[in-house]
């Protein structure tokens, strides 16, 4: 039971309200503004959109322009970009899980001294520049890059594979960049697991592989959800990876939003793209939030 010390109660309001107001102002309200701009009409002005509300000659005009959303529906480009983003993020998440789960599992089961070194090794790359680590893959994947040279030198292929500027390169990039985010929550979860449960299962006659399926895997559900959400949600809106590794033909919604904003300077459409993306991600984000809140509640016990 966590009881409030009455001595803290005066400072309480103050301590809560400072970060609260900051986050409301810089995190929450901006979404409302994005929604507002998405309903406005684009204009050649600074900033490049018309106001929703105008007041002239005693007439209050409120103009809600649904045209931007209509436009998104009409043009195949957006639909395909959303679809491709969701698809890419989903398969990349699955791949991350397939690579990350065994790693997290064996890390958690390693000796305590080795475990900490391994954990540091997983975290270390994320402390170096994300951009540069993605850039490294260009040199590896391009047609006269290291991978192709290597495969040709051992005679496995005779002409270079086209990997860079394809979806495959995007998958590799996402898995590479987000792997630590998958491993960390899984590792934390698997480490906390009571090993006597596994012993109990094998004592009751369960074979190792079945024990894994029937005990370990269900118990690590929370870690799987957390890790998957940490990969899936940002991957949907990923911009750097598709623009560096995906080439001109890869349609990802983060890239489309960027182009609408920076190249076409169409802020209302960019906002509409963002609003739709947010709606698509609402369920996964809510899932992630619920998991985090549950974890916090568990720890507080």
């Amino acid at each position, binding site marked *: 039971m966590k009881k409030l010390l009455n001595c803290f109660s005066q400072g309480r309001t103050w*301590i809560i309200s400072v970060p609260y107001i900051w986050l409301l102002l810089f*995190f929450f309200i901006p979404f409302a*503004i994005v929604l507002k701009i998405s309903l406005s009409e684009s204009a050649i002005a600074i900033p490049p959109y018309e106001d929703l509300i105008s007041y002239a000659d005693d007439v209050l005009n409120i103009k809600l322009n649904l045209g931007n959303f209509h436009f998104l529906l009409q043009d195949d480009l957006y639909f395909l970009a959303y679809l491709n983003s969701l698809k890419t993020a989903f398969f990349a998440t699955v791949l991350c899980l397939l690579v990350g789960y065994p790693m997290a599992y064996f890390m958690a089961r390693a000796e305590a001294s080795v475990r900490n070194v391994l954990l540091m090794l997983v975290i270390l*790359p994320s402390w170096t520049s994300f951009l540069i680590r993605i850039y*490294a893959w260009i*040199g590896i994947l391009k047609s006269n890059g290291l991978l192709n040279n290597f495969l040709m030198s051992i005679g496995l292929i005779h002409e270079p594979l086209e990997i860079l500027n394809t979806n495959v390169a995007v998958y590799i990039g996402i898995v*590479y960049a987000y792997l630590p985010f998958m491993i960390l929550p899984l590792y934390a979860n698997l480490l906390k697991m009571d090993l006597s449960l596994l012993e109990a299962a094998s004592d009751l006659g369960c074979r190792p592989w079945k024990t894994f399926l029937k005990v370990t895997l269900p118990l690590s559900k929370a870690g799987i959800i957390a890790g998957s959400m*940490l990969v899936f949600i940002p991957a949907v809106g990923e911009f750097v990876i598709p623009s560096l590794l995906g080439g001109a033909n890869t349609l990802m919604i983060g890239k489309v939003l960027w182009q609408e904003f920076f190249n076409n300077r169409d802020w209302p459409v960019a906002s509409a793209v963002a609003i739709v993306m947010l709606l698509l991600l609402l369920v996964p984000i809510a899932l992630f939030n619920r998991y985090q809140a549950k974890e916090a509640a568990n720890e507080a016990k």
Partner: protein
Amino acid sequence: MKLNKLSLTVLTLGFAFLYLPIVLLIGYSFNESRLVTVWAGFSTKWYGELFADDQMMSAVWLSLKIAMGASTGAIILGTLAAFALVRFGRFWGHTLFGSMINAPLVMPDVITGLSLLLLFVAMGQLFGWPSERGSLTILLAHITFCTAYAAIVISSRLKEMDLSLEEAAMDLGAHPFKVFWLVTLPIIAPSLVAGWLLSFTLSMDDLVIASFVSGPGSTTLPMVVFSSVRLGVSPKINALATLIVLVVSIAVCIAWWFARKAERDAQMLPDEE
């Protein structure tokens, strides 16, 4: 031992995947040739070119300044937020507050960047502040998303802390404010350092949000790197990458040394009763 062999294979392959690209970058930063694929002999000329690049150097400097400010701001707000989350039970809007701490961890950068830009534009129109976008708006944006990370790091430490330590300090006559300075802060200090470092690297690393909210004349390091990388492979970037890896590794080694020292201290065995 079958399992050991399997685990060794899995971990070796996994870590090879994580580290191979970094090792290659370091190797090729010393390559005489401009081409990644050809090894033309050892050279440090790209390091010279990197340091001679004024645009790059001023971007590094700006990024460092912003990262310092952002991480310091983030741990102050993050500490307050962590206290609000861990210590104060439920308050009005608790769930919303929790969501605003957790959501930035997964929110796609393009959405955060766009929304913050629109906020700054709207604020500029309404209050005339910030009048233009530049390093200040980048700083505010970075403080905001780093606060979420800092709050999570600090709150996990705060949750572990034994509340009776604070009660003991109060019982011995320390006022709540002094309790915080003399007991709470030193105990959560490692998490403040971790939160600060994490925020620092996140800020140093951010391309997308900074691109949205920056203005003319405020170009951060990732923005310079991105525009040069887009044009193709540049050995200068390899040199930069090597330097970043070097700095990070040194920092990690120092942290490692401190952790080991603390561990050794802890292992000094108490005398038998």
